[in-house]
């Protein structure tokens, strides 16, 4: 017979929804960037630099994040002419970032296979400074995940995007996105070991 009073309801893990990022009207900013206005370009860069660099950092690691982020921003500014506005600007930039990061990993894999890079023996990217031991463990575990799992964790859990947005960015179905997130979190739990959270 189970005692329904135990554990107390407060001890159950709480469901929590995330508010999706509001889609700002970027039309003016895009138009100014397309005219080559330096201030507008700098504004757009500052608006997205942390998200682009953070995503690149977590998907490809610290060593190549700057290179990937640079490639993404160049593609953004050069590609604004063909941006039709079918999706939000942020979604488009995220998609460019994920694609650039995954392509970079594929290229890096090929370079390492043929061994012409000389960096194959380098250790995995060091986790950056974190304010807690758990955060450092999480960064280390994330570095061991397959790139696709890292991408969905970064988009959904770190950047806080909805499954609809993640699916648009990753060009997959919402159901696929959900199952990938479930598998990614399960793999993270395996890597982190039991009792990640506080014990009851």
């Amino acid at each position, binding site marked *: 017979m189970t005692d329904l009073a135990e554990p107390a309801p407060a001890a*159950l893990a709480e469901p929590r929804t995330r508010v999706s990022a509001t889609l700002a009207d970027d039309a003016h900013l895009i138009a100014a960037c397309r005219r080559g206005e330096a201030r507008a370009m700098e504004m757009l860069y500052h608006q997205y630099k*942390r998200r682009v660099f953070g995503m690149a950092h977590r998907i490809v690691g610290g*060593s190549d994040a700057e290179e990937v982020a*640079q490639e993404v921003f160049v593609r953004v500014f050069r590609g604004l002419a063909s941006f039709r506005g079918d999706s939000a600007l942020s979604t488009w930039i995220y998609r460019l970032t994920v694609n650039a990061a995954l392509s970079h990993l594929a290229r890096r894999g090929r370079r390492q296979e043929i061994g012409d890079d*000389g*960096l194959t023996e380098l250790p995995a990217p060091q986790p950056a400074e974190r304010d807690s031991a758990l955060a450092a463990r999480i960064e280390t575990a994330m570095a061991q995940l397959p790139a696709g799992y890292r991408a969905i964790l970064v988009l959904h*859990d770190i950047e806080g995007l909805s499954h609809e947005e993640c699916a648009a960015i990753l060009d997959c179905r919402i159901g696929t996105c959900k199952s990938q997130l479930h598998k990614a979190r399960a793999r993270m739990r395996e890597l982190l070991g039991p*009792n*990640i959270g506080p014990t009851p």
Partner: protein
Amino acid sequence: MTMCEKIRPQLTAYLDGELADDPGSVVRGHLRECAACRQIARDEAALRDALRMLAPVDPPASLWAGVRGQLAAAEVADARKPRWRRHAARWGRWARSMRWVPTMRQLATASLVAAAAIAVFTWRGQVGNPPPDRIAQPQPEPQRPPPPQHALPAPAIVPSPPSADDVTADLIAEPARTTATYARAIEELMTVAEETRARWSDGDKAAFDAHIAGLRDAITRAGPPRAVQRAQRSLIRYLQGAVVRDDVMLASGGTR
């Protein structure tokens, strides 16, 4: 299939607030009864919360300069492209933006039209050319009157100085400048590391030296400037890590 096997795949959706009403109630009910699933849910919730709380990673200050440099280089390259290539690129962008993919039939038609156009131009060229005996002969140039004696001497042609807006030279020098900046940062960090290594154990010193030698070797072996810079950044990060770890160790009162 046990109840746990049914519930566990739904935990992610439940914790993200995507299960309402009856499905959510079923998961909640099972969690009240099952300690193992409750622990998994607790772990996943802790993981989810910790992921949400991860500190943002700040980009280095050099990122914007790098982006601007690459954009300027691309614009210079654009300006040097022949006009037809710029037009072709514009059409390509338009086709991509319209998601227009030519069918085999359209490609075949376009090939036939192109072949016909080439044939017509070739034929017209043959018809339009006069026979060899009617080729216009070059006429001697009429004599020009000598310039008046009082005319001023022609100014000597002086090459114009490069325009201040011409960033080509600056762009060409950019990779070397970046490599030099990284090299200076490496030397500064090496100085700091040398100051702190007095506190390290012999084992740590040996490991540090071996790692530094490996990373320096990678820089030497890297070919193109970007590969050199990538290897330099690896060394910088390793040195920063070594110095920071030492500071943390000191601050916590521990020994290496």
